[in-house]
């Protein structure tokens, strides 16, 4: 028996785990799907190949799914996300020099992102006074959680991400080298790149992004809206296969096997031990060997992580508006909300589990008032630094 053929694109990152395990452990085959995974080198490629139909589905940055649906940055193609591949998973890594400068300026516990953001503001002022170049921060894409997380953090401390520092897009494989060569002073990226920098002794992990937002939708399984409408049964099977994979990965007894599957050369192609530590949320954060564990580092399915949450779509849309990428309109918000499809997830899984977590507003930001998805303009009024 041959299954329904599907081509699915991915970027080699640990948050593609549910997709890769779904295919390589045979969960997609069990659902009668014959999936070919295609490894890509850039988010632009993934987006374009999904948009024009060379891919049936893709591992995609959650904000790119929204940007495509709004027609930002490229052609307008409505995208839907019926499965959330990961919550959180990024970290902010800084050079030893910036680390020393921030620690010297820190007024309180540097594990608190408000303390580090305010310390950053003082470092920025000091650099301006002495005529030094502005600090440069690397992130992965204009429409990326990394971009919005960095901005949210530094702006809360009074640093304007467009005026006071430089934010530059860097492909993840170049992040570490750029930090070593001084091209950037810091970056925000997913696994395994933060650990690579720490292991080389050229970076300190300052924060897990879970310190900034307790829940941030990171990557989604994305399909074209039209494709979803035309292939409801195939999509439901794909969602079920992903759920089985997420459950498999979240069972600690399977972690070693999952890490081995993910580490293969044609998949993520990094050491299984590094992947294992990422899945366990146990990372070396300093070249001196200091370890840090977090239950919130990367969620692949647990605490309702797999179920798309429209609050996340609203929060991402609010950041796009805040930083001048799109104007605030009711239609825009509706489009963003319609990308995340918990209804498709529920129908495929056959569960009414609810949201599965206990974060009051679904986001849990370290600064600012509770986030209300029905009041984006209220959210924007509550922040000082923004674009008009």
């Amino acid at each position, binding site marked *: 028996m041959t299954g329904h053929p599907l081509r699915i694109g991915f970027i080699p990152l640990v948050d593609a785990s549910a997709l890769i395990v779904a295919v390589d452990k045979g969960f997609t085959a069990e659902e009668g799907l014959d999936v070919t995974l295609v490894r890509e*080198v*850039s*988010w*632009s*490629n993934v987006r*374009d*190949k999904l*948009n*024009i*139909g*060379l891919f049936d589905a893709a591992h995609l940055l959650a904000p790119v799914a929204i940007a495509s649906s709004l027609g930002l*940055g*490229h*052609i*307008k193609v409505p995208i839907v996300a019926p499965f959330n591949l990961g919550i959180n998973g990024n970290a902010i890594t800084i050079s030893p020099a910036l680390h020393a400068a921030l620690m010297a300026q820190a007024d309180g516990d540097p594990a608190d992102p408000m303390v580090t953001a305010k310390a950053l503001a003082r470092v920025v002022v000091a650099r301006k006074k002495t005529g030094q170049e502005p600090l440069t921060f690397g992130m*992965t*894409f*204009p429409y990326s959680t990394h971009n919005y997380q960095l901005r949210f953090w530094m702006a809360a401390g009074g640093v304007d991400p*467009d005026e006071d520092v430089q934010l*530059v*897009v*860097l*492909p*993840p*494989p*170049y992040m570490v080298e750029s930090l070593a060569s001084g*091209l950037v002073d810091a970056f925000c990226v997913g696994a395994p790149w933060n650990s690579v920098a720490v292991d080389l002794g050229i970076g300190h992990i300052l924060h897990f992004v879970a310190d900034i937002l307790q829940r941030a939708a990171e990557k989604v399984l994305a399909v074209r809206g039209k494709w979803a409408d035309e292939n409801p049964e195939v999509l439901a099977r794909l969602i079920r296969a992903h759920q089985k994979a997420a459950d498999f990965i979240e069972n600690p007894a399977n972690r070693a096997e999952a890490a081995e599957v993910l580490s293969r050369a044609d998949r993520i192609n990094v050491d299984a031990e590094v992947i294992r530590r990422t899945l366990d949320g146990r990372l070396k954060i300093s070249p001196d060997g200091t370890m840090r564990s977090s239950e919130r580092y990367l969620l692949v399915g647990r605490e309702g992580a797999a179920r798309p949450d429209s609050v996340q779509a609203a929060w991402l849309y609010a950041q796009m508006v805040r930083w*001048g*990428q799109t104007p605030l309109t009711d239609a825009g918000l509706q489009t963003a909300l319609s990308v995340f499809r918990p209804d498709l997830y529920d129908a495929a899984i056959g569960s009414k589990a609810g949201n599965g977590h206990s974060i009051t507003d679904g986001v849990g930001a370290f600064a600012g008032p509770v986030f209300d998805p029905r009041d984006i303009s209220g959210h924007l009024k509550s922040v000082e630094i923004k*674009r008009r």
Partner: protein
Amino acid sequence: MPAEPFFKIVIVDESPIRAAILEEGLREAGFTSVERIGDMHNLLARIYALDPDVILIDLENPSRDVLEQMFQVSRAVKRPIAMFVDQSDSASIQASVDAGVSAYIVDGLKKERIKPVLDLCISRFNAFSRLQNELDKTKSALEERKVIDRAKGLLMKLKGLSEDEAYVLMRSTAMREKKKIGEIAQSIITASEMLK
């Protein structure tokens, strides 16, 4: 359609051979202002400095995402426009994606003016990948010849066969086991190394 000599084109490609082939094609077609960037360091700053009308980039280049930043409202450059801005262009995007090339326009040019450049790039990219394929094939054929020769030598020494007999033995084994002669040769070499 006559080419526009002052139409400034930048090729971003880490493969110097392919970039050279592209550049040559563009020059032959009358585009005289062509620059190449092969090193991805400080890519945006260098592109801003060159201020091109069109950027061509290989789809296998991770730095493609760096270029996306130019499409943001930015204080550093005038607002750039992506080449394929409307839905009706999806056929030409598909063609360029299939060929492995992507193009961006940095200024508000009309898309008709870029069409000949893109068509040329697609055909040059295709020609380059054909060349690459042939090269790979030739290389692997050469490798296989070497392996077969080594296995032949082993058989001659171990079994006291002539060169022809050694070859015939390998070929008949390959046919019987429905394998390639190169695979049989490789297993002879592997086995002999294990038995050393």
